[in-house]
């Protein structure tokens, strides 16, 4: 039994960042985590996936090296090696978080926690139960998990029907691979497996891939995927699935036609569920929303006094950077420091497939729906000097501004390094700069960022380079 100021239940990006911020503010902190520090992001999500995507990118680039006057031998890919590298990076990052805990004198309580009376948590590890108490607050940061699509007959079985967790641990890329769900995860794995030699079919029930992004972004990526030989089937209705030992048969209807397809492996990249089970939430008086997340106030308080929730478990968007920000805010709330509540309207979205997709704010359809008078500025990377030199001319920058004040309502970037470029717009929006301030800032030449300046110019009707 030990006593802390604050206990975090879960050491993912939300929990570990919150813990560090609490420690910075002079609080004593314990973090209960049964697996490794860093959570899904570090171990089974962002980091290993990004490592594989980088491998895919190199594979693609090397294949085009001859155009740049660099001749290589035959290009061979080995998913197993790429996977091992990605696992190494994951474990190094997890160790990095352990180091940060030591530096900030945060205690990692290994085990599985359940809320007890008041602000206590009982932790089971190796069959032993120990109770820890918090004097100030308990923060639930248990995250989410892949849940598969049992309703479509795609129960996860770790062999033929797998989730991203298993995909990150495969020795080799399968010959044929269906990916069900064309959100960020689905598109990223389509990219990786295609680069590593699988014949990839991307299935999406919505009428377009990346359905949460702007329609222009979806169309651009879909075009690029098709060009690279990824089969994309949208508005796909799965009518039946037969899961065999070495293959999966999927029958579907799309565009009025019926198809029957067979795959070596199916990756289910749709559906995540908040980890709310076996935490003693009900007994503690912590209520859930209709969608199964923990109900929180803007200050991240749950319905039980002294208990907070952050990250995926506290509701969408289920993004590491949203959880990290909530971690910082909850720490400041608990410590009674001044804080700025999470600005949920200004969280960037990033998909690391090639071309990359990034966005912030509203899509054009959302702006239309809100009946806001707007103007669109768009600049293609095909007209950007830097993009031409690197041979990465796919994509565009699209900026949606309101007519009267020039407020940046939304920004959408498809193309190389889009996920890096988006932050200029994140900073602009956070500081309420309008298109004029972006354009007034001098952008270096030749850079990809010039495309942002050009798109803002276009939004004001005075684009120079296209």
């Amino acid at each position, binding site marked *: 039994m030990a006593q802390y100021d604050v206990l975090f239940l879960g050491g993912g990006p939300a929990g570990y960042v919150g813990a560090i911020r609490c420690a910075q503010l002079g609080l004593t902190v314990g973090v209960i985590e049964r697996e490794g520090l860093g959570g899904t992001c570090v171990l089974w999500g962002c980091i290993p996936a990004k490592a594989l995507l980088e491998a895919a990118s190199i594979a693609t680039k090397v294949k085009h090296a001859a155009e740049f006057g660099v001749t290589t031998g035959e290009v061979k890919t080995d998913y197993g090696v790429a996977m091992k590298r990605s696992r190494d990076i994951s474990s190094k990052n997890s160790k990095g978080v352990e180091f940060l805990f030591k530096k900030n004198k945060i205690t990692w309580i290994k085990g599985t926690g359940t809320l007890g009376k008041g602000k206590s948590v009982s932790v089971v590890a190796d069959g032993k139960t120990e109770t820890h108490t918090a004097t100030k607050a308990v923060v639930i940061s248990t995250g989410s998990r892949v849940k598969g699509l049992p309703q479509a007959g795609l129960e996860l079985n770790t062999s033929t029907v797998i989730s991203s967790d298993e995909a990150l641990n495969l020795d080799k890329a399968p010959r044929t691979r269906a990916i069900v769900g064309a959100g960020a995860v689905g598109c990223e794995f389509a990219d990786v497996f295609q680069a590593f030699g699988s014949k990839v079919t991307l299935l999406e029930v919505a009428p377009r891939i990346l359905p949460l992004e702007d329609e222009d972004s979806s169309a651009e990526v879909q075009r690029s995927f098709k060009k690279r030989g990824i089969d994309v089937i949208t508005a796909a209705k799965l009518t039946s699935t037969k899961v065999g030992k070495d293959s999966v048969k999927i029958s579907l209807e799309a565009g009025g036609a019926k198809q029957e397809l067979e795959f070596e492996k199916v990756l289910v990249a749709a559906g995540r569920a908040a980890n709310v089970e076996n935490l003693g939430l009900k007994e503690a008086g912590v209520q859930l929303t209709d969608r199964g997340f923990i109900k929180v*106030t*803007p*200050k991240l308080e749950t319905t039980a006094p002294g208990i907070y929730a952050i990250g995926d478990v506290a509701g969408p968007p289920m993004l590491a950077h949203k959880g990290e920000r909530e971690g910082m805010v909850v720490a400041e709330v608990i410590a009674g420091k*001044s*804080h*700025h*509540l999470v600005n949920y309207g200004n969280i960037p979205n990033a998909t690391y497939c090639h071309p990359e997709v990034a966005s912030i704010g509203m899509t054009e359809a959302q702006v239309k729906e809100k009946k806001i008078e707007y103007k669109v500025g768009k600049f293609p990377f095909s007209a950007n000097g830097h993009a031409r030199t690197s041979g990465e001319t796919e994509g565009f920058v699209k900026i949606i501004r309101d007519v*009267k*004040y*020039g*407020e940046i309502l939304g920004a959408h970037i498809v193309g190389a390094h889009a996920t890096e470029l988006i932050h200029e717009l994140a900073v602009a929006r956070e*500081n*309420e*700069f*309008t298109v*004029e*301030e972006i354009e007034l800032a001098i952008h270096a030449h030749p850079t990809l960022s010039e495309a942002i300046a050009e798109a803002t110019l276009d939004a004001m009707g005075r684009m120079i380079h296209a």
Partner: protein
Amino acid sequence: MATKVTMEALSPTMEEGRLVTWSKNEGDVVKSGDVLAEVETDKAIMELVARADGVLLKRLVPEGTAAPVGTLLGVIGAAGEDISAVTASVVLSEAKDPLLPPPVASAPVVLSEAKDPLLPPPSAPGDTPAFNRASPLARRLAGDAGLDIRAIAGSGPGGRIIKRDIEAALSGAGASSPAASPVGEPQKQVLRSAQDDGGFRDIPLTQIRKTIAKRLSESLGPIPTFFLTAEYDLSKVMELRRAMAELGDDFKVSVNDVLLKAVATALAQHPEVNSHWLGDRIRQHDRVHLGMAVATDDGLIVPVIFDAHLKRMKDLSREAKELARKARERKLKPEEYTGSTFSVSNLGMFGIDQFTAIINPPECGILAIGTASEQVVMVDGALGTRTVLRVTMSCDHRAIDGAVGARFMQTLRRMIENPLMLVY
């Protein structure tokens, strides 16, 4: 040898002054005693004169800027003289707060910015920061809406004014709400009623108003109140009631109903009385939300008749009765007793001839209505009687001066003594 031009104490009580206009340009030859600038003090507009012969080498403060006594405003010296030492010393002594641009270092910038309507001229130190940090979008929104951005409290990092603050100011809800009040918290709803449509204007405090506010508060407690009592002839109101009653029960109105109507109508004509004292400014309301004090077993409560100036006497009558009933049954919702712009208190039914009521801040006035009584008067050389009513207005002197309150009482007299005006 350069001579500094500083803000001088042009009245015994002056602590800061506003430089209204420069009378000389940079480069002009000036003689000792020449008028350099006009300065608004706490009392009046005064002339600031040169204390040396030479050339006005530098104007360091833009027109319209308030500056404490002692602030360096400019430099007089020989033509072409290097004055960097004089101005540099100011940079060192003034650049205390990294968030506040030091006035000298930024002087050229400030001068050009002062012309930009979107940028606030630096205001007096001490009350608000000399330069309100505001996002570009917030400045545009404020400029477009004609809002004085200096009067808006920022909720962004370090008090930065952002879009939501302008929106809150426009909806009248959040001008003074502190940072980190998340959207959707219930307090917004409570503040809803009074200022929904932005039907008000904020009047920045002039130097003289600031001094009035400060000195009178020192003298008489936080709200320096004075009282105006008038005796109104109710004869015509009585006639009106009689005539209306003859039309049938539907048309019965009480004296109080007529008074409510008269007060609401008069207030609509006197926004300077229908106002809120907000510390750094006065908010004059176009809409009249009339509070009426109701005694309950638990104590006093003041439910509000919203938009009383737009309502017919019948509706005022019905609403007043309804609110009084709810108040006594303790059924008033918070939004029904917040947001009044002016209040009335009537103790006539207790036979009180005359009394003074206590102002309900941030309102600036309250009317205390006594009992209507018969008085013997001489009419055309013969003894007669008339019904009179004594009304006392308590005024917050920080916002309402004697003459202003008196003019309102005059308007009210015209309404009450000629109730047909209420029909017009």
